[in-house]
């Protein structure tokens, strides 16, 4: 079968036509071509063995036969629109500016080449050998120079030929768009492509490694910071303060990554990450199970991320500089808790909306009697109630006229100072009672002896006279002074207690320390020194200062 088939098909030289070539139309003698090719034709005469003879006869036949049009001719692009210009047009519109140095001769040369090579600029550039003249030597042209010159001429011609005819102008508009050419951009683009092309295999391998490294780092860092933050909140109830953590629960979403990285990688990788993280955040927030938004593709989500740090009016606001941010917040009554503040609820529970006045501080029970008296006192002050800390301050702190955040904080501080003041007062009373008892037990002579010993040891003396208590603690007049100064917040020690300035006891840091020592005074008889230290520390604590004991003594006496 095969042999029979081979015998039936032979190749024969045949003439054909190619519409893609324009050089075949001329007759053969005038530089025209006759096109022939070998084509398979069925072998007609199977009994002929004399090939040479056969071929000779067939060649003669081939000249006469035509194989028809060349089948691939249709794929040759037909570029008919190579613009050309007349001399008048060139003189009127196309004279080039001096800097790029296009003369008419060179432009003509360019257009000849363009016509010849059908706008194939790379070939034109390859064949471009303009010699120039003596006055104007040839300039080395690059691809963009040629393109730029051609397209600028085309645009000028379109404009010039359109004239004032509105229809032509309208048609020219779209043509102008087609023939736009940005010299700088094209040049940069070609250089960029060339740079990409010129990379060595080593460089390409290095780039790949670096890219995967970036991906890995960004992934692990977000996971790491999120875990660390969660751990810190769990253990210490504080925010870690790492700068790149979004203050949201969806920290893990790849939106935090560099968008370029995501864009480059794209595809299934990004989708997989997005799906994973949206699932994770959904689980975390306990959202509805049916919710299946791909965070990567959700436009609302990205706009929310933008408005994360500064709530934008349209959701598109960018991060403001701190000063403007503060101004913006003040204008809109927005308060942002600093990182690590107690306001950031560590348990993820929601603080419901409330009136600011409901956050009025609850005073300690020790203050209650003072507050009650303050509340009861009539405003005109006709019947004088027992003066309290607050009445002396002209302060009736059961309600605030302006319960702003700052005022709530202030009243908290006042309550704190008043509480400490009352505690110090009580300590003082105890110590005084102890001293009186001791004095009674020892008698006057023993007391003075003890005083001498005490001063000789350069410690706190036991004698009551050497302890200058500015107001008597139980008297109402005294407590007025106390309250005034305590409310000042800074100079509580003046009214509170005067102790010899030689005391060298270390300052205790917290309230419990002096309370313990204060209790000790009640028990023992011989522990006055300790008690004094305790009281003094209490005074220091109340004032928040340790320095100005000497000064305070004179100040209190002058009052």
């Amino acid at each position, binding site marked *: 079968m095969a042999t029979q088939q081979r015998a039936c098909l032979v190749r024969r030289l045949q003439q054909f036509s190619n519409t893609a070539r324009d050089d075949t139309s001329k007759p053969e003698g005038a530089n025209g071509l006759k096109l022939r090719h070998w084509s398979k034709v069925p072998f007609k005469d199977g009994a002929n063995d004399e090939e040479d003879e056969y071929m000779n006869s067939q060649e003669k036949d081939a000249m006469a036969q035509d194989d028809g049009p060349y089948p691939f001719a249709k794929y040759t692009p037909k570029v008919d629109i190579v613009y050309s210009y007349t001399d008048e047009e060139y003189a009127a519109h196309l004279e080039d500016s001096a800097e790029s140095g296009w003369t008419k001769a060179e432009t003509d040369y360019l257009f000849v080449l363009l016509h010849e090579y059908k706008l194939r600029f790379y070939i034109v550039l390859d064949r471009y050998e303009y010699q120039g003249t003596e006055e104007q030597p040839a300039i080395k042209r690059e691809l963009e120079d040629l393109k730029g010159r051609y397209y600028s001429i085309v645009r000028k011609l379109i404009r010039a030929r359109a004239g004032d005819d509105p229809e032509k102008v309208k048609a020219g508009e779209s043509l102008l768009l087609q023939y736009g050419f940005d010299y700088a951009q094209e040049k940069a683009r070609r250089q960029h492509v060339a740079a990409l092309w010129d990379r060595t295999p080593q460089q390409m391998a290095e780039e790949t490694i670096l890219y995967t490294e970036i991906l890995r780092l960004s992934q692990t860092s977000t996971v790491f910071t999120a875990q660390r933050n969660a751990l810190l909140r769990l253990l210490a109830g504080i925010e870690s303060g790492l700068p790149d953590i979004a203050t949201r629960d969806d920290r893990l979403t790849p939106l935090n990554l560099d968008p370029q990285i995501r864009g480059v990688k794209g595809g299934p990788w990004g989708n997989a990450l997005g799906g994973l993280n949206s699932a994770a955040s959904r689980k975390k927030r306990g959202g509805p199970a049916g919710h299946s938004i791909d965070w990567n593709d959700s436009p609302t989500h990205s706009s929310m991320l933008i408005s994360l740090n500064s*709530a934008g009016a349209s959701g598109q606001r960018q991060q403001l500089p701190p000063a403007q941010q503060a101004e913006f917040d003040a204008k*809109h009554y927005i308060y942002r808790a600093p990182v690590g503040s107690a306001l950031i*609820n560590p348990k993820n529970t929601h603080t419901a909306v409330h009136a*600011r006045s409901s956050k009025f501080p609850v005073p300690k029970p020790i203050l209650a009697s003072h507050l009650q008296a303050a509340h009861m006192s009539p*405003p005109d002050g006709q019947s004088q109630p027992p003066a309290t800390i607050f009445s002396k301050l002209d302060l009736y702190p059961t309600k605030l*006229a302006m319960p702003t*955040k700052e005022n709530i904080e202030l009243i908290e501080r006042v309550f704190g100072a008043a509480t400490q003041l009352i505690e110090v007062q009580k300590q003082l009373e105890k110590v005084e009672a102890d001293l009186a008892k001791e004095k009674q037990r020892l008698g006057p002579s023993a007391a003075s002896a003890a005083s001498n010993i005490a001063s000789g040891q350069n410690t706190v003396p036991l004698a009551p006279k050497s302890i200058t208590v500015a107001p008597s603690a139980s008297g109402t007049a005294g407590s007025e002074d106390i309250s005034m100064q305590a409310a000042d917040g800074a100079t509580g020690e003046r009214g509170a207690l005067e102790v010899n300035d030689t005391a060298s006891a270390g300052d205790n840091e917290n309230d419990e320390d002096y309370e313990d020592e204060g209790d000790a005074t009640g028990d023992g008889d011989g522990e006055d020194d300790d008690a004094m230290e305790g009281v003094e520390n209490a005074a220091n604590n109340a004032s928040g200062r340790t320095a100005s004991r000497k000064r305070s003594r004179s100040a209190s006496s002058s009052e």
Partner: protein
Amino acid sequence: MPSNDLRQRGVQIVRPIIYGNTARMLTAADKAELKPPPDHTHRWTVALRSAASQPTNGENEGDIVGGKDDLSYFIKRVTFKLHDSIPNPTRVIDKPPFETTATGWGEFEIQIRVAFTQDCNEKPITLFHMLKLHAWQVVKAIQDDPHLPIPPPIQCWQYDEIVFTDPQDSVVNNFVNHPPTPLPPPMPAGIGRPIPWHPAWPKSVIGRWK
């Protein structure tokens, strides 16, 4: 809760409001118009308003305290629960101005329940206001003297701030679109409006009637 509307953690957004009442003695015209029970002495209005007031133009100072901004962008409804002896004691106000007017003779505590719009996603809060009808310094003898002019209306207002903690993005955007009018700086005594009486500062009364 819309799942894509997350809460902004660590953020508080605040809106200043005032609530309280005005009250004035019933005039003959009021009595003819309203026909209150014979023992009623005062006509009063209890209201919840934005803290900033309309700019005063010198005259007509008095009745309108606060209320410059429209609060309906975050308050859906205000319910005033009045004393049971008043007809229709639960007054539901759905749109601004959030206020209601009645006549009476006695002071009592009014419960003001503020419901927020749906998108705030917050529960209602309750405020209490002690209705104030009588001036503090005027003794009865003066009040009854027909030769004296009718005392000016009582103003009794409490400033407060409604604090939204961890608001949602949509809430923040909504609020930012409605910035409250800034409050005027505090003025020295004697300039501008008289300082309203407040139990936190009883001296605010003194000087008003001097």
